[in-house]
């Protein structure tokens, strides 16, 4: 437990010191999406009886929580391992690998939640009308945990800093566009739809949208995300036990 709290405290200090940088950088991409797609298409486009901005915001929340949670852990942890070597301080300390991993993953998820709250606030200013309830927040937190744990795993697996940029280019960025964040997957060819449905971001955008628009949550969505969370965390723990 002391390891978990120590990691959280360190992340809190980092957050406090870089508050404005973190806050403004959390706003840039979603703000651009809202301006171009929200204002640009906004209420003039209607998807199955839903204003496009209301359709869009849950997708932006999903992709922003993914991006923020992933990058809040992946980049600093890879620097701590490969460059600053500060990871060693945690590996030598009398804490379990589980408490270290839990601290990092939860800290990353909290950063995702912070970014999401900013986006939701901005989207209401943009005129979005959505149902934000406990289930929405729970799905959002689950998505944050999934990508924070992926960030933890990737940070420990990569061999150099350019590897991180490559992972972002080939895995994270494509998911932003294809996982049902900006458009409905109904018109995607069936085979492609099955593939996209099992990508880790799709259940988040589908689940969040269903709740935000007052529909029923597809049960497969949290189930797939929990499976990913367990996979990434378990794999991350395994790698962390051996990382040098």
């Amino acid at each position, binding site marked *: 437990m002391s390891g978990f709290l120590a990691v959280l405290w360190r992340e809190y200090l*980092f957050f406090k010191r870089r508050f404005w940088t973190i806050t403004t950088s959390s706003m840039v991409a979603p703000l651009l999406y809202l301006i171009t797609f929200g204002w640009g298409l906004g209420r003039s486009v209607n998807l199955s009886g839903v204003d496009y901005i209301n359709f869009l915001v849950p997708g932006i929340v999903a992709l922003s929580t993914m991006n923020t949670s992933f990058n809040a852990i992946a980049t600093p942890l890879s620097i701590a391992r490969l460059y600053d070597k500060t990871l*060693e301080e945690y590996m030598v300390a009398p804490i379990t690998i589980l408490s270290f991993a839990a601290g990092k993953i939860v800290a990353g998820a909290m950063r995702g939640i912070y970014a999401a709250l900013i986006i939701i606030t901005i989207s209401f200013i943009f005129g979005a009308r959505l149902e934000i309830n406990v289930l929405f927040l729970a799905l959002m937190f689950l998505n944050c945990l999934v990508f924070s744990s992926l960030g933890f795993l990737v940070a420990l697996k990569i061999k150099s800093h350019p590897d991180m940029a490559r992972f972002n280019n080939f895995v994270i960025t494509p998911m932003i566009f294809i996982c049902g964040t900006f458009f409905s997957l109904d018109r995607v060819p069936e085979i492609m739809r099955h593939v996209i449905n099992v990508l880790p971001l799709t259940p988040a955008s589908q689940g969040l949208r269903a709740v935000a628009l007052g529909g029923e949550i597809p049960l497969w969505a949290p189930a797939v995300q929990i499976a990913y969370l367990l996979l990434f965390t378990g794999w991350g723990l395994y790698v962390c036990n051996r990382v040098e």
Partner: protein
Amino acid sequence: MIALDQVTKRYGDTVSLDSLSLHIKEGEFFGLLGPNGAGKTTLIRIISALTVPTSGRVLVAGEPVNRNNTKFKSQIGLVPQHNNLEPELTVVENLQLHGMLYGIPKKESAGRIKELLDFTRLTDKADTQVGKLSGGMKRKLLIARALMHKPAILLLDEPTVGLDVSSRRKVWDLIKGLHKRGITIVLTTHYLEEAEALCTKIGLLKKGRLLMSGSLDELKNMVGPVVVEQFYNDKTVLYFYKDQKEALKAASSMGEGITVRQSRLEDIFVKLTEEKSE
């Protein structure tokens, strides 16, 4: 206190430690010497669970070394070769973080921090970000951090590398003071005078193997306490003898450019590391 039994570490085809066995007793000040790539840092990293050995067994204070064994970890304080302090945190925050990681109660931690800043003369830098400290100050902070939890064993991996003479002497005094307090110390160094000045026992490593270990006098006796140094064909050659009489007798037949003197650690190091590679 520290026991390594047939420890091997391989990185692909490269053997960093080769079936190394070593026992370090409680209260010893053990110096590990060796040329670059001898395996000194790998050995320190294995003892502190930062590196997993390919084979062999490592015990620290009777506990098997592995990353999830928190019992042995609380016994160890590590000062790594490189600076691994949190650069964005201040001096005090780095120590506070260490205190939290080691489960030290807040009040006790504050007291320890005050004491250690005083000991390392960093009190006036308490609120300075680590990134803004000089190299010598960072080394001292690394030592202070390693002492926060009062470890029984201190592992120092080239603690004075890159420091000027004055800073090096200050770090030496710190380390000497710690040994006087009864802490078991393992030190790796390139500086032979450092090992000679500080260590009660020395081990010579080369290509992952322990060539020899013992006190300085024991090492001298193993190789020869008296040395005849001859400068011949643009090269210095050393001959070791068990006493002065034997050395003088040999020197008398060698011609010019001869010096007869007591052997030093440097002579033993050169003899062993060059001998074994021939």
